C-alpha cells in the first residue's frame, strides 16, 4: 500500500474557469523523495497543500487523496499535525514565537505532550540538527538559513511521516540552501522520512530525488526518475527548468547516460571526448602528412584536448578522413593556448565571445564611465568590522555588470552604497547619471499602493510630469507611450494590473517591480539578487528583459550569487571578497581557469576548454565535435 495516493485530483479556485489541478494521479511510497517541478502558476503549491488538509485551499474539488489507504480529510487534527509536516517558503513568516526554544516546542505544546517528552524531543532535535547553540536565542538574531532550519526542526520534533516542503530554499543564499537541503536529504536517507518537495532550486535536489513529478498547467506532464524525465522537458521546450548539467546533456543530443551531478557530468564529458580520440588521432596523423602543419606542438595539444564526436568512428569510416579533418580545422581551431587565435579566427563559436570582448574594449575606449567609487570604506557600527574596505569600482556606459561574491562579502552593501542609500565613512562615490533605479532584494518593498495598476500609474505620472516640465508638446508624451507599451510587452505586467502587489508570486513581483522602475526611464539600473527564488524560465525571462533594457541604453549593475546567470548575461563580472573587488573581467575570462567558483558548464568542460562558461557554449562544442 502506498503511503500517499492522489487519485484524479481536479481543483478549481473559486470563480475561476480553468482548473489549477487537472486529473492529477500518482502514488508516493514510504521513504521516497519526490520532487515536484513546474513553471510559475502550474499548481505545484496547490497540489502540495492538498496533502495537508488544514492547508487545503477552498474551491471546487473532485478526486481524493489517500493517506495509508484512508481519505486524508478523515484524519483527526491531531494525526494531521503529527504525521504531515509542512514547511513554507518564507523563513520569517512561519515563525510564531520570539524564542528558538519556544518555536521548537510550539507543535508539541499544541499536542499537549508531557513535559519530559517535550524536553527529550526538543533536545534530540536540537542536537541532531545542530541548533543547540542558538537554542535560547531570540529568533530575530538568526540568519535566514538558520530560521529555515529552525522551521524544519520545529516540524520534525513532532516526528512526522511525511515532510512537505514548499520551496523551502528559494529565499536563502546558496550556501544556506545547500546546508538546508543536505539536512533534508539526511532526514530522508537516515531516518526514512518521506519527502515531497516543491522547488526551483534544482541544481542539487535534482540528483537527490528518487522521482520527479513535472506539473504543467495543472497536469502531470511527466513522472519518473530524474534520468528518465529530462527528455520530456526538451520536447516541450522547458529545458531551463532543469539543472544546467541536464540541459547540456539534452541540448547536445543526449548521447549516453544522462548525468545528474557535476561528477557524472565531467565523467560523461570526458568519456565522450575519449571516444573520439582514436578517430582524432588518425585524422591528426593524416593532417600532419597532408598539410604539414608547422605548429606540431599545437597539434599535439589538440589531440589531447580536442572535443570529439562520439559516434563518428563510424562516420570516419564512411567519409574520407581528410575531408572530415579539414572541415574540422575550419570549424574548430585549437581550443587551448589560444587567446590571440580565437580573436583571429572568426569562424568558431569563440567569435561570439571575441566579438563581445572587442566590442567591450572598443566601448570602454569610446564610452565614459557613469559611476565610480574610489577607495570606499564602510561598516555598520563603529566597533564592527569593515564590510567594504578599499572598494574601488567603475561602471561604464551601456554595460551589464555582475557583482559576484560569496555570502556576506558585502555585495548588497556595496550596491546600496552605490545607490546612495548608505554613506561610506571614507572614500568617494561619483555617479554621472541622475536617473538611477534600485531594485532591492525583496521587491515587495517597492510597492506602496493597493494594486499594480495604481503603482505603475504613479510611476508613469511622475515621469511624465518631469518630461513635460523640461519640454512642452505631445511628441514627448507619444514617445513615452511607446516606451510604456514596450515595457508592458517586455515584462508581461498587463495581466497583473488588478492584483494586489502582495498577492503576486515572487517572479511576478519581480516583473512588476522592474516595470515600475523602468517606467521612470532610468539610465542606470541596480538590481540586488534579482534571480532569488526564480526558476530557470523566470531567469531566462529576466535576462531577456535586461537585455532589452540594455539595448535601449540602460546601464545595468547586478549583485548576485548566481554564476550561471552572470555568465549568460553579463558583459563584465567582478568578484567581491573581503569588501574589495579582487578580480574583474569579461565572463569568459573571468570564469576561465577557476575550478571552484565557476559555472556548471565550465566545471565540466573547463579543463579542456577554459572559455566555455555557459550551457550554450558547451552544447555548441559538443555538437560541433559530433558533427565533425
Amino acid at each position, binding site marked *: 500500500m502506498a503511503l500517499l495516493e492522489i487519485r484524479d485530483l481536479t481543483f478549481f479556485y473559486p470563480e475561476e474557469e480553468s482548473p489549477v489541478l487537472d486529473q492529477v494521479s500518482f502514488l508516493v511510497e514510504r521513504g521516497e523523495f519526490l520532487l515536484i517541478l513546474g513553471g510559475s502558476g502550474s499548481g505545484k503549491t496547490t497540489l502540495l497543500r492538498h496533502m*495537508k488538509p*488544514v*492547508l487545503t485551499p477552498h474551491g471546487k474539488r473532485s478526486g481524493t487523496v489517500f493517506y495509508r489507504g484512508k481519505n486524508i480529510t478523515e484524519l483527526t*487534527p*491531531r494525526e*494531521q*499535525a*503529527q504525521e504531515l*509536516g*509542512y514547511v*513554507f517558503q*518564507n523563513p*520569517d*513568516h*512561519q515563525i*510564531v*514565537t*520570539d*524564542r528558538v*526554544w*519556544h518555536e521548537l*516546542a*510550539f*507543535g*508539541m*505544546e*499544541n*499536542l*499537549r*505532550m*508531557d*513535559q519530559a517528552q*517535550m*524536553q527529550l524531543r*526538543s533536545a534530540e532535535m536540537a542536537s541532531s540538527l545542530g541548533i543547540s547553540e542558538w537554542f*535560547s536565542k*531570540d529568533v*530575530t538574531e538568526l540568519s535566514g538559513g538558520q530560521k529555515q532550519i529552525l522551521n524544519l526542526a*520545529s*516540524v520534525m520534533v*513532532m516526528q512526522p511521516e511525511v515532510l512537505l516542503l514548499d520551496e523551502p530554499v528559494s529565499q536563502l543564499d546558496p550556501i544556506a540552501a545547500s546546508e538546508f537541503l543536505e539536512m533534508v536529504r539526511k532526514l530522508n536517507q537516515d531516518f526514512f522520512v518521506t519527502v515531497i518537495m516543491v522547488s526551483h532550486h534544482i541544481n542539487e535536489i535534482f540528483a537527490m530525488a528518487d522521482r520527479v513529478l513535472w506539473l504543467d498547467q495543472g497536469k502531470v506532464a511527466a513522472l519518473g526518475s530524474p534520468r528518465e524525465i529530462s527528455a520530456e522537458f526538451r520536447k516541450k521546450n522547458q529545458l531551463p527548468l532543469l539543472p544546467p548539467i541536464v540541459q547540456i546533456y539534452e541540448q547536445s543530443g543526449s548521447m549516453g547516460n544522462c548525468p545528474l551531478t557535476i561528477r557524472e557530468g565531467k565523467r560523461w564529458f570526458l568519456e565522450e571526448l575519449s571516444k573520439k580520440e582514436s578517430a582524432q588521432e588518425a585524422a591528426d596523423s593524416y593532417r600532419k602528412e597532408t598539410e604539414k602543419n608547422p605548429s606540431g606542438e599545437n597539434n599535439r595539444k589538440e589531440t589531447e584536448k580536442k572535443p570529439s564526436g562520439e559516434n563518428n568512428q563510424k562516420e570516419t569510416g564512411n567519409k574520407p578522413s581528410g575531408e572530415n579533418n579539414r572541415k574540422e580545422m575550419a570549424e574548430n581551431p585549437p581550443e587551448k593556448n589560444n587567446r590571440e587565435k580565437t580573436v583571429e579566427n572568426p569562424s568558431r563559436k569563440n567569435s561570439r565571445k571575441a566579438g563581445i570582448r572587442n566590442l567591450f574594449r572598443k566601448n570602454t575606449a569610446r564610452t565614459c564611465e557613469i559611476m565610480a567609487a574610489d577607495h570606499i570604506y564602510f561598516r555598520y557600527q563603529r566597533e564592527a568590522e569593515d564590510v567594504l574596505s578599499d572598494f574601488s569600482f567603475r561602471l561604464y556606459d551601456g554595460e551589464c555588470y555582475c557583482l559576484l561574491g560569496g555570502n556576506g562579502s558585502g555585495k548588497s552593501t556595496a550596491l*546600496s552604497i552605490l*545607490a*546612495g*542609500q548608505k554613506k561610506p565613512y571614507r572614500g568617494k562615490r561619483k555617479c554621472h547619471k541622475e*536617473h*538611477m*533605479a*534600485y531594485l*532591492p532584494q*525583496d521587491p515587495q*518593498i*517597492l*510597492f*506602496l499602493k493597493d494594486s499594480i495598476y495604481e503603482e505603475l500609474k504613479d510611476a508613469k505620472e*511622475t515621469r511624465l510630469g*518631469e518630461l513635460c516640465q523640461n519640454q512642452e508638446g505631445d511628441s514627448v508624451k507619444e514617445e513615452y507611450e511607446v516606451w510604456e507599451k514596450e515595457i508592458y510587452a517586455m515584462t508581461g505586467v498587463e495581466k497583473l494590473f488588478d492584483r494586489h502587489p*502582495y498577492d503576486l508570486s515572487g517572479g511576478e513581483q519581480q516583473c512588476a517591480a522592474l516595470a515600475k522602475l523602468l517606467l*521612470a526611464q*532610468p539610465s542606470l539600473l541596480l538590481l540586488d539578487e534579482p534571480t532569488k527564488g526564480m526558476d530557470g524560465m523566470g531567469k531566462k525571462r529576466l535576462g531577456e528583459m535586461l537585455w532589452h533594457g540594455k539595448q535601449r541604453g540602460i546601464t545595468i549593475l547586478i549583485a548576485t550569487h548566481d554564476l550561471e546567470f552572470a555568465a549568460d548575461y553579463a558583459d563584465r563580472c567582478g568578484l567581491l571578497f573581503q569588501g574589495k573587488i579582487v578580480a574583474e573581467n569579461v565572463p569568459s575570462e573571468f570564469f576561465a581557469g577557476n575550478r571552484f567558483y565557476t559555472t556548471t558548464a565550465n566545471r565540466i568542460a573547463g579543463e579542456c576548454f577554459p572559455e566555455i562558461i555557459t550551457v550554450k557554449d558547451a552544447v555548441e562544442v559538443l555538437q560541433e565535435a559530433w558533427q565533425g
Partner: protein
Amino acid sequence: MERKNITSYQKDGFASLHPAVQFLYFMTVISFAMFFRHLIFLLLSFLGASLYLWYLKRKAAAAFLGHLAFPVIVLFTVFNPLFSHEGSTILLYFPNGNPLTEESIWFGLHSGIMLGCVLIWCSCIYEIFTSDKLMGLFGSYAPSFTLLISMVFRFIPKCYGQFKRIREVWNAAPQGKRQGKRQGKRQGKRQGKGQGKRKGQITRNFQIVSIVTTWALETSVETAESMRARGYGIGRRRQFQKVFWEQRDTFFCILFLIGAGIELWAIAEKKIFMTYYPVLRMNEMSPGAGIFYGIETVLCLIPFLMGIWEELRWHYWKSGI
C-alpha cells in the same frame, strides 16, 4: 523594539534564580519601598536598587539615575512644599500667604526618593525579566496568554524591521528624493524652505505605515497557517517548561521570607516608625533599630551582592587556573 542578549544576564547569580523567586523578591522590595514610610529604609532600598542597576548596566545605569531618578527627587522636593502646607514647623510664608513647612520638604524628599526607587527597581526588572521568565512564571497556568505575549514579542520587531527596510529604500530612491526636493524648491519660494519636503516625507511615512499594516496582515495569514499546520487549536496547550525549581531557590526563599517577616513585624509593632505630619518623628537609633536596618540593607543588596560574589568567584577561579 530592541532587546539585549539574554545570555549575559543569565550568568548573574540572582537573575538565574527561578522567575517566581525573582518575582516575589521584586514585589516585596517594591512594596516595602512604597508602604514603609521610613526614610532610612527607603534610602537603603534606593542604594540596593541603584547598585544592582549599576551592576547590570554599568554606564547606562548612571545615565538612568542622572536623567530620571534624580530629577524626580528634586522635582518632588521642590514641588511638594509648594502645594502641601501641612506640618507644624513653619520656615517662611509665600507671597500668597501660604506657609512653607519643614515637614512638607521632608515629605517631598521622601516621595521623590520613593518614586525614583520604584523606577530603578522596575528598570532592573525590565533588564532581567526576559520573556522567557514570563513564560516560566505564567506558562503552566495561562499557556495561551504566554503564547500571546511571545507572539507579540515576535511581531513587533518584525514589523519595525520591515518599516525600516522600506523607509531606507524609499528615502534613497530617486523618485522619493526627487519628488521631495522638487516640491521643496517649488514651494520653498512661497511657503518657506523645506516645508514641501517635510510634507512629502510625512505623506510617505503614512504610506509606509499603511503598507506595513497590509504586509503584517498578509504575513500573519502565513503565520496562522503555520500554526494550524502544527496543530494549534486542537485542544488545551501545555507550556514547555524551561525553568525548574532548584534547591537554592528554596534556600533563598526561606531566608528572604524570614528577613522580610522580621521587617514586617518591626513595622507592625512600631519598633521602627517615622511620621512626617504634623511633626517629623522617628524611632530612636538604638541597637535594636540597628539590627532592623542591617536586615533591610541585606535584603536590598542581595541581588547586587550575589552578582558581585559570583564575579569575584570567577575572578578567583580564573586566577587560580
